[in-house]
């Protein structure tokens, strides 16, 4: 196991983390603490926008009520289903590599990426419909918040799509095994966060007047 030139940073000079004892799982705890720390900053980032939503909703309840009907509830719900399924597939991906099943890892990562792309395509059609209907960020504060919050979220979906694609590429190169799959797990945790943000965006923007 490991490389012939042993000048890496890990135990025994390995350049790739290896178990210290045969079959012993390498701790991924620091990485998980790290990603949750980062997700904390993301919670506050979106939190600022949710706070703005709260303030302006309190100030202009009638505007929020009337405006929200102009959003397509069915497309919003469809996108919610798409993201929920993508969280399911990425969880399955991790469950698979935990058992060392590399093929399934790649399959489920590919499905997740496909669903992420689907979300973005639906969002594109939604925005196109909105613009065609004369709805822009400058229309009023409700639509300003709508475009800002879903737009920022869509940027996060795109970023997640890129990271997941990188994971798919690395897994195709055999980088992951049942003893080491930390990057996939970290990417998955980020992806679940993106799903959770949308879970709150759906009712606040599309469903509740």
């Amino acid at each position, binding site marked *: 196991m490991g490389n012939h030139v042993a000048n890496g940073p890990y135990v025994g000079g390995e350049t790739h983390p290896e178990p210290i004892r045969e079959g012993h799982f390498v701790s991924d705890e620091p990485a998980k603490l790290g990603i949750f720390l980062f997700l904390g900053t993301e919670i506050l980032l979106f*939190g600022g926008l949710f706070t703005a939503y709260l303030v302006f909703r309190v100030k202009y309840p009638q505007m929020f009520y009337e405006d929200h009907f102009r959003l397509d509830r069915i497309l919003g719900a469809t996108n919610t289903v798409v993201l929920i399924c993508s969280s*399911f597939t990425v969880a399955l991906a991790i*469950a698979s590599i*935990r058992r060392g099943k590399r093929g399934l890892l790649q399959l489920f990562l590919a499905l997740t990426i496909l669903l992420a792309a689907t979300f973005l395509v639906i969002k594109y059609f939604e925005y196109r419909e909105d613009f065609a209907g004369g709805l822009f960020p400058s229309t009023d504060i409700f639509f300003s918040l709508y475009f800002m919050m879903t737009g920022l979220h869509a940027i996060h979906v795109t970023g997640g799509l890129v990271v997941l694609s990188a994971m798919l590429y690395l897994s195709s190169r055999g980088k992951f095994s049942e003893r080491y799959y930390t990057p996939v797990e970290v990417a998955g945790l980020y992806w679940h966060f993106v799903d959770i943000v949308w879970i709150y965006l759906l009712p606040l923007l599309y*469903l509740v007047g």
Partner: protein
Amino acid sequence: MAEKGSNDYKVYAVVWIALLILTGTTVAVSYVDLGFLNVVVALLIASAKAALVALFFMHLKYEKKLLLGFALAPLCFLFVIMSGTLLDTLFRR
């Protein structure tokens, strides 16, 4: 450290179905006029969905308490920020 039973596929599947059902419910309820209860129900359902994703998909139910702390602390800060801003909005405007 990742001792998972052989049934995590099943747990994920059950959670997935629950999430889909909750999504359908929240959309259906949005067509019924319950007055201000609409907001309450919608947020409760959304929080239930978020909790399911966090506890099961993100594995927080099975992780060390420290990790759960890292995940919850930002929410506490957010609660403080939102409460303070809301109070300010309601009583100064």
